């Protein structure tokens, strides 16, 4: 617990001017960083603070709030046994991030997944294409404004109507 609060204090001074806000919640440290400085912050965390490992890079859709997307980097320091989270808020109208592939190589696939499911573009990514969904898939299904259901639930009263719309395979 104390180590984490110490970490927050250290990072506040070390990354002053880069970090917008340092949030400590139940011992978890979150750095809120503007998009333009995120690579700088990650490089500092990796090289100076010794957070050698990118555990995960994910996205959260805060629809209909604006800024809508939150990109999260979960970092872990193997040598110090500490964790830190870096958060970047993105606008709906400009969902472009700089790639973290140059800092953490495993960000490659994580960013492809974010691109696949949330439609966020990563500038400078070496291989930005879909990773989970089929290559010809339209849309980005994990966005909040995409409906969860793809098909109406069938009951006795609407079964025939739904069935008429369904495509059936030929021989």
């Amino acid at each position, binding site marked *: 617990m104390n180590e984490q609060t110490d970490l927050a204090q250290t990072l506040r001074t070390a990354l002053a001017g880069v970090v917008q806000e340092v949030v400590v919640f139940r011992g978890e440290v979150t750095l809120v960083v503007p998009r333009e400085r995120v690579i700088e912050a990650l490089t500092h965390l990796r090289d100076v603070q010794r957070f050698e490992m990118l555990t995960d890079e994910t996205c959260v859709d805060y629809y209909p709030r604006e800024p809508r997307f939150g990109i999260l980097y979960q970092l872990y320091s193997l040598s110090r046994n500490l964790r830190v989270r870096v958060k970047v808020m993105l606008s709906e109208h400009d969902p472009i991030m700089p790639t973290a592939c140059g800092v953490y190589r495993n960000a490659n696939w994580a960013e492809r997944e974010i691109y696949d499911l949330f439609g966020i573009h990563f500038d400078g990514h070496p291989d930005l294409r879909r990773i*989970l*969904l*089929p290559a010809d*898939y339209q849309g980005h*299904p994990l966005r909040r404004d*995409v409906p*969860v*259901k*793809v*098909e109406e*639930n*069938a009951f006795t009263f609407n079964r025939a109507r739904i069935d008429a719309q*369904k*495509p*059936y*395979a*030929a*021989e």
Partner: protein
Amino acid sequence: MGLEQKLGDMGIVTTSLEKVVGWARSRSLWPMLFGLACCAIEMMSTQASRYDLSRFGMELMRASPRQSDLMIVAGRVSRKMAPVLRNLYDQMPDPKWVIAMGDCASCGGVFNNYAIVQGVDEIVPVDVYVAGCPPRPETLIEGIMKLHEKIRHEPLNKWQ
């Protein structure tokens, strides 16, 4: 006059070719070794000692679609898996049949979302739907016996 009265002193039984072929086909279905999700566990137990699918001449699960004539779609089919499934079906030689095993293969089941095909009948023509989540081995065997019945009554000229 029934067959029973003739038994013992005859060497010839007259029937139609269609019936003999249907009977022969239904008694030696070779299913394809193809499990997609939890339904595959029930399918395995259907073949294993307790339920013993070899009673129906089906003990041979072929790992190649070219040697099998029954596809048991055991589990949910994701949109990315769909072309693979169709490819396997196309590689099976005629005559061939498909059982949609379980709710997911039949209609999408609980997975009413972007990733799962809402029923494999969108990709391959299905002969028998087996309900259940997952269906017990008895249910699958019931589905297989329904398919046997269907095969026995199929006209010969269906597979040309």
